[in-house]
């Protein structure tokens, strides 16, 4: 058993596995990523970053750098439009513009080691790097705080003097690092715990981890004399880059064109702008195209990791195995500026369970680390690690099978989450049942020091805005013009949905991802939304093409367009078997019947439909070294409808492995002064091929009624269960409940009392 699809409804194109349209470019090295962009006369930029985790910037002297031969320009925060200290909606939720601007180039204070201070453009990258050493910054180092619990204490060093706690609609009145306190309550949690026969209460911690995309951030910009700014970059959302640039540069949207290049991974980390405004400012100063690429240390130290966390979980059950109360507190490190994913984290924490009484508290706390950004199901993996470990302990105390325990308490259609929303049709029960029926679950695990763990996870998925155009060619093929960055095969998953509507093959649809001048607005490739929402836009545009094609056929046959049908690749009039035209035949007649056909569609669908996942892992713990070896892994997930099953499996496998890395290896080691001590791929150790077995998958299809083909987003939820699944398996192997991530060999030996 490797990969299984539990198909509920079959289609012609959807559910097949065509070769992706951009595949040849990518296996031959011809695909152009952000770092591959080159222009005549292009300059190269480098960024000076703060060596301190927390420091006041008294002055910056760039004169020596500017005088160096080969240097063409230097920019500091003085060159940026200084942001007002107020909240703006920039497509990724509310953003304080001053924080956004200050994160691009520090003005009064550097808030983390790696915080950008100045940027240089020079004739080559080496000259630019040398010039950085000539920039004199007068820093006053301040005490740093790099742990969420420390930052919440009275007397902790304060990062942002004007920050006050926003707590359920009320603002605090004194300086603090706690930006927000969120709370959700359902039922009566005290009463619930009184009804409980068994209560488990535990505390958990997780370390800061990074998205770890292999391609570093990059940006190339050309600011023309007429104010037209073009930016080429690897981004998850060209339109959102344009939105952010318009704000931070105080430049009109229509004068900014963002050209999304191929992108080498993102996982949420390539939504904020870092280098794009610097490239633009340097180009404005020099009149030349300017390109910047981050080094790997810049990526670790200067771009969004995901929050480290401290969590408390308390769950009560009856002896009959019914969960009667859940309570969670989650404290997240937002990084240098407010805005961690603590909200989504607490909302997902107990989402898989149907429970009467619940209380959730979330704290968003600033610390002297890079501003955290989205990372695949932002916030949910931390919360699920805590909650799913406690659920495993409860199942054990009750003496019931952990999957049976979850089935007994499973969320289903109509269940109200603790944070309020009521589930539409969801596939959690079906995933649990598929896990129970799997070869993996049914095959006993034997051998010393081995354990099997299971855990589950939920992620909302989102809709948001998508647009696309379809043009019909005279040979019966179509071009699909889209604006969603293709980060893992979405050109093909969109083309397949258009092909399904049009009765064409996937290969007859040619998808292209274009720039912000060339298609309507598209939100980011994120939130597991692209195949769902941009796919829906492709569906709508294809429906419009069919409508226009029927009108042309009606014109030719002097029939009523409403009487023209399109079935099995053929247009015909009801009750008339003589007149038939294939899509290709009719395409050839368009220029003689009124001209070309094109269609565009813009959508903002709401019914994303949540995704559930259940993961099973077998592992072995080396009793001498504490090293964990993954022996077998099965990921089960409700995809609604898998458009291209291979790429759905790929998301499940990739998410599981990122979760395994988070569980076992990955961690920012911080020095006493708040610097990251391991900012290379050698020391920040992500899983390699040698660390893993094959990752088996079971795709469950419980159609999402909120999408024409039943699609649910698939990209994010597979990173939610692995951490707890691994922890639960380690418990079965060793008898030790691990409550801190990562569960390194050292941590396991420490828990055993060996070191």
């Amino acid at each position: 058993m490797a990969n299984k699809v539990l198909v509920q409804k079959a289609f012609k194109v959807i559910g097949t596995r065509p070769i992706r349209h951009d595949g040849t470019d990518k296996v031959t090295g011809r695909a152009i990523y952000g770092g591959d962009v080159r222009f005549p006369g292009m300059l190269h930029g480098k960024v000076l970053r703060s060596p301190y985790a927390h420091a006041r910037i008294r002055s910056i002297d760039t004169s020596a750098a500017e005088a160096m031969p080969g240097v063409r320009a230097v920019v500091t925060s003085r060159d940026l439009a200084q942001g007002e200290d107020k909240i703006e909606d920039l497509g990724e939720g509310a953003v304080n513009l001053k924080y956004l601007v200050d994160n691009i180039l520090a003005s009064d204070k550097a808030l983390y080691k790696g915080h950008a201070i100045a940027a240089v453009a020079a004739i080559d990258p080496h000259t630019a790097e040398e010039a950085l050493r000539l920039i004199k910054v007068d820093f006053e180092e301040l005490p740093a705080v790099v742990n969420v619990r420390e930052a919440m204490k009275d007397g902790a060093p304060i990062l942002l003097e004007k920050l006050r706690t926003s707590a359920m609609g009320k603002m605090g009145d004194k300086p603090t690092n706690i930006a927000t306190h969120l709370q959700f309550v359902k039922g009566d949690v005290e009463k619930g715990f009184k009804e409980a026969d068994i209560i488990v209460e535990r505390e958990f911690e997780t370390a800061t981890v990074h998205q770890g995309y292999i391609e570093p951030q990059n940006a190339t910009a050309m600011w023309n004399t007429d104010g037209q700014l073009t930016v080429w970059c690897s981004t998850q959302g060209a339109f959102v880059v344009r939105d952010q640039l318009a704000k931070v540069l105080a430049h009109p949207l229509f004068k900014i064109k963002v050209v999304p290049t191929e992108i080498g991974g993102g996982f949420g980390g390539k939504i904020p702008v870092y280098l794009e405004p610097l490239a633009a400012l340097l180009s404005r100063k020099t009149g030349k195209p300017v390109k910047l690429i981050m080094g790997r240390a810049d990526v670790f130290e200067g771009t969004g990791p995901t929050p480290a966390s401290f969590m408390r979980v308390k769950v009560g059950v009856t002896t009959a195995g019914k969960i009667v109360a859940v309570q969670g507190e989650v404290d997240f490190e937002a990084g240098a500026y407010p805005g961690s994913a603590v909200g989504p984290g607490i909302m997902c924490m107990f989402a898989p369970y149907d429970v009467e009484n619940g209380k959730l508290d979330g704290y968003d706390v600033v610390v002297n680390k890079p501003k955290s950004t989205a990372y695949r199901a932002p916030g949910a993996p931390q919360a699920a690690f805590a909650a799913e470990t406690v659920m495993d302990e409860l199942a054990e105390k009750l003496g019931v099978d952990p999957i049976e325990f979850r089935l007994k308490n499973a969320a289903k259609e109509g269940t109200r989450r603790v944070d309020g929303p009521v589930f539409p049709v969801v596939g959690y029960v079906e995933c649990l049942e598929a896990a129970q029926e799997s070869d993996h679950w049914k095959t006993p695990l034997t051998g010393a020091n081995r354990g099997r763990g299971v855990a589950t996870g939920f992620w909302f998925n989102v809709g948001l805005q998508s647009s696309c155009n379809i043009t019909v060619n005279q040979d019966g093929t179509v071009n699909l013009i889209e604006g969603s960055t293709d980060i893992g095969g979405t050109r093909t998953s969109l083309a397949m949905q258009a092909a399904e509507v049009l009765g064409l093959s996937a290969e007859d649809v040619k998808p292209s991802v274009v720039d912000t001048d060339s298609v309507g607005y598209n939100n980011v490739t994120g939130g597991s939304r692209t195949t769902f929402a941009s796919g829906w836009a492709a569906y709508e545009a294809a429906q419009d093409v069919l409508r226009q094609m029927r009108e042309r056929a009606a014109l030719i046959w002097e029939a009523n367009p409403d009487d023209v049908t399109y079935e099995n690749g053929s247009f015909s009039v009801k009750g008339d078997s003589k007149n038939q035209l294939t899509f290709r035949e009719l395409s050839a007649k368009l220029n003689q019947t009124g001209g070309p056909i094109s269609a565009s569609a813009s959508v903002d669908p709401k019914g994303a439909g949540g995704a559930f996942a259940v993961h099973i892992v077998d592992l072995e713990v080396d009793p001498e070294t504490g090293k964990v070896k993954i022996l077998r892994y099965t990921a089960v997930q409700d995809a609604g409808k898998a458009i291209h099953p291979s790429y759905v499996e790929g998301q499940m496998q990739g998410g599981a492995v990122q979760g395994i890395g988070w569980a076992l290896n990955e961690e920012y080691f911080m020095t006493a002064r708040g610097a990251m001590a391991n900012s290379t791929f050698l020391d920040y150790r992500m899983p390699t091929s040698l660390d893993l077995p094959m990752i088996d998958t079971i795709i469950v299809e419980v159609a999402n009624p909120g999408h024409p083909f039943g699609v649910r987003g698939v990209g994010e939820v597979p990173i939610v269960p692995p951490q707890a699944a691994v922890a639960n398996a380690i418990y079965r192997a060793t008898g030790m409940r691990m409550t801190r991530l990562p569960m390194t060999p050292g941590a396991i030996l420490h828990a055993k009392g060996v070191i």
Partner: protein
Amino acid sequence: MPTRVHVTTRINGEDYEFLCEPRQSLSEVLRETLGLTGTKEGCLDGNCGACTLILDGRIVDSCLVLGVEAQGREITTIEGLAGPQELHPLQQAFLENAALQCGICTPGFIMSAKGLLEKEPHPTEERIRWWLAGNLCRCTGYDKIIRAVMDAAQKI
């Protein structure tokens, strides 16, 4: 200004001459001077494998080789893997097995796998995992990459 060094080398079966600074890496020269951007850069310190190419029959991280070291050597990059209108069996297998998502690590993986299959035409799964451990992929979880290499080994 540093003195540039004249280098003569063979890349993908063709003779090349270029001038480079002693501090420039081979990956930088390929990408910036010669326009061969199929070789990718992810870390510049030899830990991600995106810049893997074949130098005198051995796979190397080209970010850890200096441009001047290319003098008199034989280099194969992803651009030289197959003829103008064909794909190497590894490239075909990566397509058919959906062994890429973002694709930035793909040229490096294919070059490493080529290095393996030239030495060991029929490697085990474990051997492939060992050989490719110097190439990082953050998207796929490696499953489909390993299957693609096993598939290509069957077909070569």
